[in-house]
């Protein structure tokens, strides 16, 4: 069994004078989930479409399992499952009929076919809908069927373009679960998303792209430690304005706290390290001071801050 891989070499796409993707070089190899993170318009879909030979690079080339998508889309996509741009299945077909067509075109052996179809439908929890027409399905159901279709031949490489986007919160959670499950097999998953949490929840590695340029690509722990320096930020909400502004200095002096700033008279931003335990200690101490602690925001990692800055700059 060969190692699944995706390689992009100087991959560039221009639309007229506008550069949507600028010399992207990336080499993904082995069984893992790589998050392709970037704000809307960053160039994610453009990249994935070139991988699937739906659009053509202005410059550069990309390879799936060492086979050029540009020179031989058929062989390059043989071991890949692709879901881009929420495609539509012919509405008059049932999932079973559509999957039979996919199996015909992909050459899934007849003996395995029925079993595979039921397996992937079970994987996306759509088995009881196998014989209903796709045209009547909700967006979330269609997306799950699309994911199942991409998995029918048990591909070594899975390419997903924002699989959870556009779904309601429950649909998003379900799709995330499905993707997490995909990792149980030896697969290389390349999934784009504009939601940081989705990537940190599901992926092992993250590549950040903005305005067509790759900003970094590393493992998630490396990225977290590189950018977070172990710090997290919480906002402490107070029931009343802080009477003694000097208190902020006391907060800053607490163990593990790096900085404390008074954002508003009744809101203090605290940057601290030491994880959940430090957060617990911090909260207990602040409460014991009887300064009217009312709420504590979810800690926001430095990665999130950086990503939000990128998004902001992207606007």
């Amino acid at each position, binding site marked *: *069994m060969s190692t699944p891989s995706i390689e992009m070499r100087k991959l560039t796409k221009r639309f007229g004078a506008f550069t949507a993707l600028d010399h992207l070089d990336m080499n993904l190899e082995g069984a893992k989930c790589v998050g392709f993170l970037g704000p809307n318009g960053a160039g994610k879909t453009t990249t994935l479409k070139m991988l699937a030979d739906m*659009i053509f690079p202005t410059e550069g080339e990309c390879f799936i399992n060492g086979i050029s998508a540009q020179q031989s889309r058929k062989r390059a996509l043989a*071991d890949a499952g692709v879901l881009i741009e*929420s*495609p*539509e299945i*012919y509405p008059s077909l049932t999932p079973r009929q559509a999957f039979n067509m996919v199996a015909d*075109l992909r*050459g899934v052996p007849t003996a395995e076919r029925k079993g595979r179809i039921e397996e992937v439908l079970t994987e996306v929890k759509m088995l009881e809908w196998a014989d209903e027409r796709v045209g009547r399905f909700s967006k979330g159901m269609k997306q799950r069927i699309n994911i199942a279709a991409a998995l029918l031949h048990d591909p070594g490489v899975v390419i997903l373009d924002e699989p959870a986007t556009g779904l309601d919160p429950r649909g998003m959670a379900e799709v995330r679960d499905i993707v997490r499950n995909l990792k149980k097999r030896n697969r290389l998953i390349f999934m784009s998303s504009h939601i940081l949490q989705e990537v940190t929840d599901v992926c092992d590695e993250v590549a950040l792209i903005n305005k067509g340029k790759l900003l970094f690509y590393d493992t998630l722990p490396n990225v977290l430690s590189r950018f977070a320096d172990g710090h997290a930020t919480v906002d402490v909400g107070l029931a009343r304005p802080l009477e003694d502004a000097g208190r902020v200095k006391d907060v800053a002096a607490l163990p593990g706290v790096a900085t404390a700033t008074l954002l508003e008279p009744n809101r203090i931003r605290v940057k601290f390290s030491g994880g959940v335990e430090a957060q617990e200690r911090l909260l207990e101490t602040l409460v014991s001071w009887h300064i009217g602690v009312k709420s504590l925001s979810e800690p926001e990692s430095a990665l999130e801050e950086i990503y939000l800055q990128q998004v902001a700059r992207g606007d």
Partner: protein
Amino acid sequence: MAAVAELPSSMSQIFQLTKNQYREYLSSRRYLALVGIVVAIGAILSFVVYHYHDTLQGPGGLLSSNLAFYGSVWAGALGLIVVLAAVFFGGDAIAGEFQNKTGYFLMGLPIRRATVYVGKWIAAFGASLSILGLWLAIVLLNGAAYFGTDFLPWQLVPSIILGIVYLMAVLGATFLFSSLFKTSAYGFVLTAILFLFGFTLLQDLVLGLVKIEPWMVISYASGAIGDVFATNINWGLAATVTTVSLGPRGGATITSYTPGVAEGVIIMLAYFVLSSVAGLLLFEREEFS
């Protein structure tokens, strides 16, 4: 994960795609509508012919001979039915894949672009053929009613073949238009306008203004479908030229051309080949963006 080695050949993928697409066509509302249209045309014609059969049996009438009958009825409506079938099944064959986003599903699969194009073409061709078959059946039933055992002139065979070649040409052009635009409606409209009016207009213009044989116009070539029922068939590559003088002193003359059967076949095949090559090349460069 050894999927690479097990991929079906492009030939077999074309077959699978055709099979699936054909099934899709046959179960579509469009197919039903077209069957309805052809049955309606058949019903009206049958009724009219039956109602006036006494007069029509007179000299030169539609029922005067089986050749006259097939020349007018079968060949007369065939052009319209071919164009309707091409528009119904081919008008949005490619554009619809963009518009309905079904193309993104197909393009995620390990198939060549040409496979998609050819597979869909053959399916549309098959669906159109079945409609032509329906028309033939209706006409034959009428023929049997009026001519008894003499209802099958051999000329029907070359006429059917010519009709099929015409279908190939129209469908080739329709697919070309359909891949030229990403909006389905353009393909429908362009095919319908060109083949229902455009080419006959062009043919008249060439004939009237340039005064040469309009060999480059497909509607001219398709005339062969009905011409084979004439008493003298020109099987050749050169047209039959007829000059009629108007007025007693032979001042003005009108020249008319009838394509040779081989000539008609070659012109129609040229339309088919050129439009298919152009459509395929276009689709190879088409971006699903």
